[in-house]
């Protein structure tokens, strides 16, 4: 590498690191993201300045194509669709690594003339890149609901088949590393890895998808680092490894927030095949319904009210109405707080994002622990489109698939009002005994409309 390139790369990865450090703090995150973006620009320019660069038109074509596709996609995606967008972006990154490894193999006609470590690093990059590409596509399909969200398996042969796919990919790798030169060998690696990636992600439940995307994200990082070793490129090594390491930690943190281990995530999701069909109310208790006027009166005469938002609030985009309701209550002397579960919604921090959008102050947001110590001293808990994160079965029923997940103990408050459209189940597909609890009343309907009518009634009081 030339001096210009190396110095540029050092500046670039320093910016990546500074940016990453920024991203870990709420106040510095926006700047951190742009710092990393500047680093990327520096790295690209330094590369284009390498002596002997050519094929400028093709390079420009690739860059323009990518920009034309990427920018509108990122601009237009709805907040609720962000996770699948991230999955897609991650996938194309992995795909790029796999394609580069493929082209390199064809260029050098196998790695016979290269040192062993170049062959090993390239093959690792090809394999992991392909797994990441196809795995991410499946994750995207699941989150976009193009594929069933529930765990999908091929039955008893699924796991053996997955193992065979991985073994086949590794076998091709060994043949190439031992001197194989046929162009079909690398295609074999890529295809076998593709099967492995698809089979790996298919049986994982949609609820675990963010963890899986994070894992694939780390994998793409590692494949980029391996590509860097093969190309002797410092920027790729550092940036790839940075993502590989930080992504691994992040995956772990996210799994922990859901009280899951990585292994249990990979071996099959929440609500495995056995419970996947429990859709209606199965606990058979009596369900009390209520109306907006009654709810308004109950809230107005409470001392302390908990708002428990969930995925349904996101779907209904009810956050602004919710804040209006809370403001009215606060204005008439009721203490209102938001009980925010870390995995409510469909991505970590989903509720925080929405509530922040509706201008709810940080002070009013209580995390899981705080909420659970406040709920027993709360008069009314208003559950807005949340389900799994309030399910008492997670605490009490060892046979439930969500047993052990920390939940908000809304059933500890004096009374509970649940706003949802039906008795349908949530993401995990399990029944919720909260709805038939004697202290619970249901207010059926779209969350936004229900909350709006409660607001009307409150104003009329």
């Amino acid at each position, binding site marked *: 590498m030339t001096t210009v390139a190396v110095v540029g790369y050092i500046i670039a990865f320093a910016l990546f690191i500074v940016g990453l450090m920024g991203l870990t703090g*709420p106040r510095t995150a926006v700047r951190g993201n742009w710092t*990393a973006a500047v680093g990327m620009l520096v790295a690209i320019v330094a590369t284009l300045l390498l002596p002997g660069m050519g094929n400028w038109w093709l390079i420009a074509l690739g860059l323009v194509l990518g920009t034309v596709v990427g920018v509108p996609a990122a601009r237009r995606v709805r907040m609720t669709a962000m996770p699948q967008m991230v999955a897609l972006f991650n996938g*194309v990154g992995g795909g790029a690594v796999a394609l580069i490894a493929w*082209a390199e193999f064809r260029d050098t006609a196998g790695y016979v003339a290269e040192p062993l470590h170049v062959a090993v690093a390239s093959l690792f990059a090809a394999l992991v890149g392909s797994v990441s590409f196809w795995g991410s596509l499946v994750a995207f399909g699941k989150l976009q609901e193009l594929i069933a969200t529930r765990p999908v398996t091929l039955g008893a042969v699924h796991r053996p088949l997955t193992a065979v796919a991985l073994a086949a990919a590794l076998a091709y790798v060994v043949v190439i590393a031992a001197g194989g030169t046929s162009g079909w060998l690398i295609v074999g690696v890529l295809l076998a890895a593709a099967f492995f990636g698809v089979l790996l992600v298919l049986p994982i439940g949609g609820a675990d998808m*963010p963890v899986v995307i994070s894992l694939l994200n780390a994998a793409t990082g590692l494949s980029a680092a391996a590509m860097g070793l093969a190309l002797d490129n*410092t920027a790729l090594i550092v940036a790839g*490894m940075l993502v590989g390491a930080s992504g691994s930690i992040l995956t772990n*943190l996210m799994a922990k927030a859901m009280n899951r281990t990585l292994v249990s995530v990979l071996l099959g999701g929440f609500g495995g095949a056995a419970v996947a069909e429990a859709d209606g109310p199965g606990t058979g208790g009596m369900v009390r319904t209520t109306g907006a006027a009654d709810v308004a009166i109950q809230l107005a005469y409470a001392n302390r009210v908990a708002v428990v938002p969930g995925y349904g609030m996101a779907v209904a985009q009810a956050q602004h109405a919710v804040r209006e309701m809370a403001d009215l209550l606060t204005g008439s002397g009721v203490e209102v707080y938001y009980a925010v579960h870390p995995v409510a919604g469909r991505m970590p921090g989903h509720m925080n994002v929405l509530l922040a959008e509706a201008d709810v102050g940080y002070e009013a947001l209580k995390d899981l622990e705080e909420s659970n110590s406040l709920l027993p001293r709360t008069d009314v808990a208003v559950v807005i489109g949340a389900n799994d994160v309030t399910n008492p079965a997670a605490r009490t029923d060892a046979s439930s698939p969500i047993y052990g997940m920390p939940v908000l103990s809304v059933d500890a408050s004096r009374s509970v009002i649940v706003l949802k459209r039906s008795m349908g189940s949530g993401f995990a597909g399990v029944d919720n005994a909260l709805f038939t609890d004697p202290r619970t009343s249901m207010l059926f309907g779209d969350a936004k409309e229900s909350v709006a009518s409660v607001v009307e009634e409150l104003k009329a009081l």
Partner: protein
Amino acid sequence: MLLNNLAVLVLAGFVGFVVLSRVPNTLHTPLMSGTNAIHGIVLLGGLIVLGLGTEGVFNKILLVIAIAFGTVNVVGGFLVTDRMLGMFKEKPGRATRKEDDA
């Protein structure tokens, strides 16, 4: 050269590890998205292999796609992260809400 690169690899791993050791729950998604954008660095691999010369039309097609993929990863990644983080920003009008007088 390989060995020196290994030293770089290990050090970069430690940096990634240490930086992420303590992060608030709410930032998990933007962080995932931000690191996702950073591994768009693979774009450089496409630039190098294509730019420094490759044989055959098929290879060129592969690499143009790779560069396009890498570019989507980079620009899409940073933009989406920025949008997500935008949701966390303090809004100016918070202290004086209209609804308070309602």
